């Protein structure tokens, strides 16, 4: 394992905001892969989104080959925030961009993935970032996390909406080259898939180190770090027990209604900070108008 230390997480909020603003088109040519009436748009705007994001990274890192790809090839250690912001920009583009822009973004990622190949030092197995199995795990971790975070600290999605969300999201995995037939299209299928992958998952030293950093990023700035404590607590609590066991995190106490309110208040403050970044309010307003008119139609 290369022992290069992680760079500071300075600018996390700013860079996330910039990624978000740049990913949402001013004048969309079409409604993109999901559209304003989708459950995907609704859940993406939920207060629980930062918790979902952190939880999904915690899940994704447990696949040794996915983790090795990130650790050995990307700028992860040198510029962790840049790496996260790039991922977030990509996700936002696929979510909100018009179809052509989303496809182009996916195409670029596929080209990058072509070069991400190697051998995982821990398992000794070769890996390729374009491997549909890895892409599917990353996809499933995200989809599962959006639902789990929403249930724990967000606006809990109705069962039918949860199914619809999992089904809507299949298109984003397909976009990166995962064959449609293997992508879970319902909550039940998603859970079954995750259970099936469990034997492959482990907490490699790279995962332990990366996630240690994610839970307490250096250089976040005191104020954001303070808010991050609650976001982190929520993300860890939203994990399945077995994931926490793999990391060796202690089981957190159950979240009481009062604690849930507290976390939501922290998320509200965090959201206010995000909202103040240039362009975020305008971007939100544009999306909100589109979602409203879609709701009326």
């Amino acid at each position, binding site marked *: 394992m290369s022992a290069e230390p992680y760079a500071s997480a300075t600018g996390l909020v700013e860079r996330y905001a910039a990624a978000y603003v740049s990913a949402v088109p001013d004048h969309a040519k079409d409604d993109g892969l999901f559209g304003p009436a989708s459950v995907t748009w609704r859940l993406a705007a939920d207060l629980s989104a930062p918790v979902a994001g952190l939880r999904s990274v915690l899940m994704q890192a447990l696949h040794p080959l996915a983790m090795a790809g990130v650790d050995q090839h990307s700028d992860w250690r040198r510029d962790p925030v840049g790496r996260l912001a790039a991922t977030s920009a990509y996700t936002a583009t696929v979510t909100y961009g018009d179809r052509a822009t989303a496809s182009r973004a996916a195409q670029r990622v596929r080209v990058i993935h072509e070069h991400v190949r190697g051998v995982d030092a821990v398992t000794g197995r070769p890996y390729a970032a374009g491997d549909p199995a890895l892409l599917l795990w990353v996809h499933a971790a995200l989809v599962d996390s959006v639902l789990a975070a929403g249930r724990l600290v967000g606006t809990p999605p109705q069962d039918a909406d949860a199914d619809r969300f999992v089904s809507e999201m299949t298109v984003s995995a397909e976009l990166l080259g995962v064959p449609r037939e293997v992508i879970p299209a319902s909550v039940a299928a998603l859970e079954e898939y995750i259970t099936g992958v469990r034997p492959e998952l482990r907490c490699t030293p790279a995962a332990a180190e990366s996630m240690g950093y994610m839970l307490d990023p250096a250089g976040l700035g005191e104020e954001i770090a303070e808010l991050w404590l609650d976001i982190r607590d929520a993300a860890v609590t939203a994990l399945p027990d077995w994931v926490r066991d793999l990391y060796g995190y202690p089981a957190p106490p159950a979240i009481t209604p009062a604690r849930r309110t*507290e976390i939501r208040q922290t998320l509200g403050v965090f959201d206010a900070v995000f909202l103040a970044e240039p362009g975020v309010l305008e971007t939100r307003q544009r999306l909100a108008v589109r979602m409203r008119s879609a709701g009326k139609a």
Partner: protein
Amino acid sequence: MKSERNARLRSPTRKVAAIAALGGASIAGLAVVRHRAARLGGSSLRLERGLTALRLAARGGARYASNAPRLFASAGEHREALRNDLALQTAEDVAATLGTMKGVLMKLGQMASYVDDGLSPAARRTLSRLQDSVPPMSPELAAQVITEELGQPPERAFATWDPEPIAAASIGQVHRAITLDGRAVAVKVQYPGIAETIEADLGNVALLRRMLKITAPSQDVDALLAELRERVTEELDYRREARNQQMFARYYQGHPTIGVPQIVPELSTRRVVTSDLADGARFAELTSWSQAERDLAAETIYRFVFRSLYEAHAFNGDPHPGNYLFHGGGRVTFLDFGLVKYFTADELRPLVEMVKHLCVENDPEGFRRAMEDAGFLMPDAPLPTDMLVEHMAVFYDTVRERGPRTMTGAYASAVTRRFFDFRSPLAAYVQIPRSYVILQRINLGLFALLGELTATADWRCIAEEIWPFVQGPPCTPMGAAEAYWRASRTGAGQADVRSEKSFDLS
């Protein structure tokens, strides 16, 4: 879990206020306050504490008839369309938009926005951004609140109801209407559920503690929280504001230049306050008027502030430029009485003594004693009296001598700078008792306002008219008109003031 959390929060490296995070990218500005506090250390933090309370007591921001009456100031060209498209349609929309601390942050921001030294530009931008993010209620939702509060829908409660709001209020919006008996009125309607939402969020002491910690040493956070909760809770009940405004309206009834819109009590409730509709030029417009007009307007504002204080024992703590309408000839309408402080005779006496000793009797030791009596100065502070006088004189600069003086922006900022000067040798011994905190807004708000108008007058002479220990003869035409008004007032006017006041003293 809880104590563990708290312990974690208390550790020095985590000694953080999330409100600083409101500064977003460049939070450093707000941190200045804390660094100052660190430099001061120990017992000398009392002034700092007073300032924090002041910051909390301060209000401003976009509100009823604000300077630029922002109705959901969305960026971009389609403001009107956006406003309608994004209007809050249900109480759930209100909770989603203003719940989870956002309403509390907005109030906090308003309270802080007046004191320019308190927040970094970035933090202020963030808070104002938050304010911009709140759309108005849809006509249906506003009508629903009216129905709940007045017992019938607006088109029945009023002869005419304009469903389009004319201005944003901090936790509501203002509609125009005509009452059944033909009065043109402004109706302020509170967002439904906002009171409950804000009260619930105010209950999160842990997060508020974190938000406030940066501006206050830990032992004071509880007092500050109490102050904040009190202020905000007061504002959530419009009945209090209606009572305040009624008191001022009665007191100034018939005044030659001071106007206060009358409240319509039967159309005012906890979430709705109805008053006569006033129209006039905004502050921004006034600044383009002739200097003579500006001087007259300034004289009226000055008289209003000090007459209210010395005679009605009441101080409207909101000298925000948006709270005035100007009509020419010095006539000014005063709006928004959400934050009014009533003083007891005992509370007022030392203030009067201070002015008297410094400005009239030229008795520095008496001034010092009065400062001590008021609790501004620690007894037996090892400070020479002339140093004290020299430091404090700037606050009295405009009234120490007769003769015309021009208020300038430079004077206003000198006063502000002096006020915030923690490096001064006095800082360790001077503090602002809680009951006077709001008064300091005379320095920070009134002088800034008059400075912006570059208003000239013989302020000392006007003050002598008002000072109860001088009661000098009128020295301007406005003073003469005011004297006539005072002489012609019935005794009932005074009695009214007293009864209203006892109503509100708490």
